[in-house]
């Protein structure tokens, strides 16, 4: 770092759930994402800083952190868009256990994805053919709108309901369940509604829309969850959820 370089202050969370913010001075760059800032600190200022990343272009969803109070994908967040009063505050994602510094344990997130039956179950269709699926059909269109999730955990961290009750399945898992339910190839669509109608499932959502507000790839889990609420209610009234 030369003395002529312009720098800005970055406060980074250190420790696990119990910890504190540690200030660093980081040089400004013309092109600089929040992940670049964190990398700079690890490479040049504090080699022990822990953080997680992989693909670096918004594909893997590994590097989400809380930046100035908001959960974000850091690899695709340009510093100039989020810096406030010449300062950045970076913390791990909320609503997940902290392993160390900026790294969270995403296990509960993936367990809930499983519990919401966020996966395909093969149907009876012929295995050596590809099912015709019209891209404009209502179900496929609904599924397509929800499918491009990168499971970064940003919505889960932004979700107020998860922050109030940690057994709620959360937006990402339910969003996946909605896409699965709209998949006409699925062999057990009622099973999805059963999974999401447990006490901690879709009906727990209060439609705050924090998930949709923060999703880096512009999905709308609230909408998906509303769909599940309607579908499972219908199924319940028809007595299919026993």
């Amino acid at each position, binding site marked *: 770092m030369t003395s002529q370089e312009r720098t800005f202050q970055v406060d980074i969370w250190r420790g696990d759930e119990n910890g504190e913010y540690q200030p660093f001075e980081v040089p400004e*760059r013309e*092109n*600089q*994402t929040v*992940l*670049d800032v964190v*990398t700079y600190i*690890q*490479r*040049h200022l504090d*080699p*022990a800083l*822990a953080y997680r*990343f*992989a693909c*670096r*272009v*918004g*594909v*893997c*969803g*590994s590097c989400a952190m809380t930046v100035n109070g908001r959960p974000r994908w850091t*690899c*695709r*967040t*340009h510093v100039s868009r989020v810096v406030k009063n010449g300062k950045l505050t970076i913390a791990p994602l909320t609503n997940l256990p902290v*392993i*160390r*510094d900026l*790294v969270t344990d*995403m296990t509960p997130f*993936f*367990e809930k994805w*499983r519990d919401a039956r*966020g*996966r*395909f*179950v*093969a149907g009876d*269709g012929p*295995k*050596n*053919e*590809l*099912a*015709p*699926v*019209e*891209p*404009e059909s209502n179900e*496929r269109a609904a599924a*397509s709108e929800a*499918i*491009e*999730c990168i*499971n970064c955990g940003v919505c889960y961290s932004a979700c107020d309901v998860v922050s109030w009750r940690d057994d709620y399945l959360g937006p990402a898992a339910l969003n*996946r369940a909605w896409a*699965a339910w709209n*998949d006409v*190839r699925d062999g057990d669509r009622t099973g999805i509604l059963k999974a999401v109608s447990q006490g901690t499932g879709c009906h727990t959502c209060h439609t705050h829309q924090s998930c949709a507000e923060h999703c880096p790839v512009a999905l709308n889990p609230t909408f998906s969850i509303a769909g599940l609420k309607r579908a499972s209610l219908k199924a319940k009234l028809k007595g299919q959820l026993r």
Partner: protein
Amino acid sequence: MLETMRTDILIIGSGGAGLFAALYAKKANPDLDITIAVKGLVGKSGCTRMVQGGYNVALNSDDSIERHFMDTIVGGKWLPHQDLAWALVNGAVKRIHELENEYGCFFDRNADGSLHQKAFAGQSFDRTVHKGDLTGIEIINRLSEQVWAQDINRLEEHRAVAFVPTKDGSGIAGVLLINMRAGSFRFVQAKTILLGAGGGPTMYRYHTPSGDKSCDGMTMGLRAGLKLRDMEMVQFHPTGILAGNDTRMTGTILEEGLRGSGGYLLNGERERFMFNYHSHGERATRDIVSRSMIEEVRAGRGTPGGGIYIRMAHLGPEKVAKQFKGMVKRCADCGFDLAGGDVEVLPTAHYMMGGIAFEPDCKTTLEGLYVAGEDSGGVHGANRLGGNGVANSTVFGGVAGEAMAKAITDGTDWREPDASVIEHEVGRCLKPFTGKPGDLNAIRETLVDLMWDKAGIIRDKSLLEDCIRELDALGEEHAVAGLADSTRAFNLTWHDWLNLESQILVSKSIAHAALAREDSRGAHYRADFPETGDLETTRYTTIELSDGDKLVTGSEPVEFTIVKPGESLIEGEAGAPPEIAPPPQAAE
């Protein structure tokens, strides 16, 4: 501290190869205890996930696996292991049905509901199955959620550092890993082991693979005495983003379709230059465009950032913004206006065709060790077709899973590890904690420049000899470099040290193999040997480690077991696409 555990099947890596292997093995025998160990989180690290283009598979009645095979062989400049390529094109058909019908992948459809297959460079038929331009995410997410739902052990943030053989060296007993979260060591003993950690030429200044890639798998293979092949074959993609110093985004891909649809490449004087090199201009093949860009920069006509501009604005910024939404957004996120302005790009290292030599059943020469995906070599030869990469990892991952389960059913048991190897390897990994703090950043910078300048897109004897000499010196510098912080838990700087160790060794392999191949074909270009040479006598290079640290190169003739140069499986055609400039095509 060393924790030990036992499992039936250990899988290193959770890309297309690792996940398919786990699911296949579990399906073959649900009673098996299967463990996936991965450097990051299951399904979230590695490169399959990053696949944009799609999945090559011959499904159309006007297409055929023979045609797919011929495209692969001709595209690979007759260097591929033909039995492997044959396994690839056949297996792809099976896999795409499984991905759709068993795991629920959403692949794009035509309006009538049938599967959409798009055109992709180097193919004589439009056979690339895709999900928009995020095909990898779709495949990996669907596979991951199947794995999450099954009784499959996950060792996440566990980095494999060494294969541990039996005392007599006849087979593999297990793998030594670092539990990255705790900073402790773990030895996992397994009856069969799959290496599916992926490759990734991240030792080049500009590279596309996931940032966690560091060629650990090939390094472990070399150390365990396995033979690698085709290591000189590193594929470059012409348009990687140039975002400046200290940016992770630098090197990541701007898709091929930008040039295909009429984008311009401009030098620092904002003049088009591609027609000075090739009559197809910007639409020439990847290798030609990459080479031309490098020559233009070397001639002093680069941009201020040392690259080339890509310009789309003349096609109408609004149209571009709509047609290439993802790319425009990606550029905007790092501060560039792709739709209306000029964006600096440079060719970027993309894929390693070379890797551990293996057989169509994924076995290696080490009993009990299997390999699949980018760690393996020989499927693609001198060049990999876009869309054959994800096919490779998923096809062979499944093959390996089945073979590993069968081996255990047939009586394969645990083998006793050579404890001295474990001790030695733990010592190797902990060495930097004892040294005086070294400048790892400087070593990394030196490495990426060295490989870029001297073993990159244009090579020659003197460059490569320099490169090897300097790599040796760099290796020595790295070996004594210590760490400033003694924390072992989640110490990324420790892992940077380990990454560099792997990268330097594999860099040496690339440079040695490149020096050994005295012709130019596919991804490998020697300015001092610009001719392709005789196809009938094609040989592939091999490299192995002997006496612990000496790389020995060799070569073997390619066996034309299925088709010979000059022949074709398709009547009246060579199988490769006609040599004309591709028409402008829309991004899919």
